[in-house]
């Protein structure tokens, strides 16, 4: 660690302590303090990862807590449960009243305001995957619920949804694959008032990246694991307190490792991208990061890792569906109001058919995503369904983004309308790996 980095690490450590106190909120100065910090870190190309909170087990579990699955009635059904409907209604309200309105500025500032993240946390968005024993709110573990929630939130904004849902992915990973000790140590804070900033980092900066073949390596050294590699487009990495990172274990394949942000050798570097800017994406750099044996999830079982990759893809599909719906809902009034050659452009088949296609492909994306999630919930294999949803959401989702801009013409290309942002965001859904979990 260079001296500069060390200094920054110290500065951040003290600032985090400051950040976790209520005083800032009482004085109403939190934002300005944070803006100062943002400026302080922006200039450097690379910084030590945030010095996060200490995770220690308050409750001991004798065995890992797992949320049960909902009972299967064996009937085809597209009606959400009452619980799901209520949750989605609350999220939709939030997405419309708070998320959509904050989206332009969040995109512009490359940052989602903390108040918004706190509100999202209050809705329980980060807690869907936490067993009740550890403070969770959902009786049943449901990928469908996660999908519906993500869809509703992304209707507000994909970048903000990404930022808000990112900690939940870490909680879900530990909920699904953590052992009793890992759960007791890490999960309770996620059910707390201010959940830790956390990220599930799988993606790496490489063309045709395959998450099943990460270049990040984990090697054994005595009773420790030593990890080296670089992760890409990690949401809110600079603020991150806890990471779950994929790394290849020579001889046994990729596995997930829990890494606390204070650890030596862990750095972040800003990585602003085409879209998803509200999530303050950054690289996460691991230079001989040393973690104990107990840091590996699911005992390094490769099938759990494959499941993680698939669940992440389903979650990205859900974001694409939510954003695609936002495009459609924006297009409909626009083409009906916009006039050319003496009548609304919606009266022309060239325009109307393009809108129809958005509607048709969007519905197909939604149903394939739901099917993959519902199979996961039923304990059925879902690799095929997740892959098909992914394929569809990659291609048709991007087409929807492109048509959204196209149908607004020049107006679509400028920032007065949100369609240019959705165009940038929708490109991500097909290339992102990890980071979210259904």
């Amino acid at each position, binding site marked *: 660690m260079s001296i500069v980095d060390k200094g920054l690490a110290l500065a951040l450590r003290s600032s985090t302590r400051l950040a976790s106190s209520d005083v800032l909120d009482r004085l109403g100065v939190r934002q300005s303090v944070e803006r100062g910090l943002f400026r302080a870190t922006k200039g450097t190309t690379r910084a030590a990862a945030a010095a996060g909170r200490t995770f220690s087990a308050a409750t001991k579990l004798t065995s890992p807590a797992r949320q049960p699955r909902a009972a299967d*009635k064996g009937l*085809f059904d597209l009606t959400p449960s009452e619980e799901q409907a209520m949750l989605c209604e609350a999220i939709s309200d939030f997405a419309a009243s708070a998320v959509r309105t904050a989206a332009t500025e969040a995109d512009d500032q490359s940052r989602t305001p903390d108040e918004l993240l706190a509100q999202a946390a209050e809705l329980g968005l980060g807690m869907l995957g936490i067993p009740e024993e550890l403070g969770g709110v959902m009786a049943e573990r449901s990928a469908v619920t996660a999908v519906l929630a993500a869809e509703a939130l992304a209707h507000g904004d994909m970048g903000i949804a990404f930022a808000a849902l990112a900690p939940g992915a870490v909680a879900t990973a530990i909920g699904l694959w953590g052992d009793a000790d890992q759960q007791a140590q890490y999960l309770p804070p996620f059910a707390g008032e201010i959940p830790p900033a956390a990220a599930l980092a799988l993606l790496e900066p490489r063309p045709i990246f395959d998450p099943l073949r990460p270049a990040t390596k984990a090697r054994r050294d005595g009773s420790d694991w030593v990890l080296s590699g670089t992760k890409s487009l990690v949401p809110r990495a600079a603020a991150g307190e806890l990471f779950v990172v994929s790394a290849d274990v020579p001889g046994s394949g990729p596995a997930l490792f829990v890494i606390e942000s204070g650890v030596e050798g862990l750095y972040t570097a800003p990585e602003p991208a085409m879209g998803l800017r509200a999530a303050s994406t950054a690289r996460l750099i691991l230079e001989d990061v040393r973690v104990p044996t107990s840091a590996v999830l699911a005992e390094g079982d490769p099938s759990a890792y494959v499941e993680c990759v698939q669940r992440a893809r389903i979650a990205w599909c859900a974001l694409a569906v939510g954003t695609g719906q936002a495009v459609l809902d924006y297009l409909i009034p626009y083409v009906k109001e916009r006039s050319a050659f003496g009548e609304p452009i919606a009266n022309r088949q060239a325009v*109307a058919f393009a809108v129809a296609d958005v509607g048709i492909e969007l519905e197909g994306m939604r149903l394939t995503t739901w099917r993959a999630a519902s199979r996961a919930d039923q304990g059925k294999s879902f690799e095929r369904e997740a892959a098909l949803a992914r394929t569809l959401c990659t291609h048709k989702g991007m087409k929807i983004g492109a048509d959204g801009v196209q149908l607004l013409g020049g107006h679509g290309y400028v920032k007065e309308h949100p369609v240019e942002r959705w165009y940038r965001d929708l490109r991500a859904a097909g290339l992102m790996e990890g980071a979210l979990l259904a």
Partner: protein
Amino acid sequence: MINLETPRKLAPLAKQASQVASEVFRPISRKYDRAEHEYPKELDMFAALMDGKDAGAGNAGAGAAGVRRKDKADEESNRNGSNMATVLGVIELCYGDVGLTLTLPRQGLGNSAIASVANDEQLQRFAGKWAAMAITEPEAGSDSASIRTTAVLDGDEYVLNGEKIYVTSGSRAELIVVWASLDPSKGRAAIKSFVVPRDTPGMILERLEHKLGIRASDTANFRLEDCRIPKENLLGSPEIDTEKSFAGAMQTFDNTRPLVAGMAVGLARACIDETRKRLDEAGVTVDYTRPANVQHAAAARLLALEADYEAALLLTLQAAWMADNSKPNSLQASMAKAKAGRSCVDIALGCVELCGSVGYGEDSLLEKWARDAKILDIFEGTQQIQLLVVARQLLGKSSAELR
């Protein structure tokens, strides 16, 4: 609870239809593709079997009995009823052969119309008869509101005059459900459907078409010359109600379009399964866990085609499920038909391309399926008509505004 799997209770029915597809249809698929206009007599025995089944609870047919809506739906409970059952049956049958499915005795679209809108007396009178559907005319295809065939009441009889083309199974069915206008000056509201026994004097079979595909299914052209039928053969109300009439006729489509979408889904899956097998033999397999772009281009292509198949399947099941649960489904029915119609053509042609000369040659059925596929994007409403329906619904436009 959200669940998009085949309903457990309908799995035996789907299995049964799948056995018909593999044991009855596939072995004679190529034979009747070559012998166009020859009646597939093998179907008679099978149809008799089906009649017995229809009398019971199951229905694996092509849609004859399946699309009547319940008048009152239980608001609370989720139904997987006859629409779902029929769609699942059709998917499996068309996995075997679309042409043969279309010419299953007593399973015509006319039967669908009768089952959907006939009154109890008519249901009884036409029971057990094979009914075809005659809508299209030389000058009116997609624009079914402008048909010119007329029906004039004369005493206790309607007298029909006009010309009908593209009547599926028209030469094989016992009854033809004919769309005709009571008064062409009154537009679409005056269009009604009439059940015409094929042997009625004045119902003249002109010729059978030679087609690109679905050759096992005959396509007939008729001329109606002072063709007299009892006035009780009119389906629905004889009143010309500008609000309701044509909408009523069009409502049949809400139930039949998911069926045709199901046909496309079945054919698409046949193509994908066959191509998967052939690619596998050639050493190319799809790995669902890995990104498409790190796989063989042929595997990536098959994955993309299968994704479209999956969307078409689920849209189709959604439309049928909504019909079963008495939810308005015109939008979803047209979405399903549009997606399934275009996808099955893409998929079939893509599969032929992937398999090269093996797919193009007559040794495999892929080239036949690619020919069969195109009709599914045309009949029961072309792709363009489905897009119009979807666009009007999404945009809240009338047919006068969005033409």
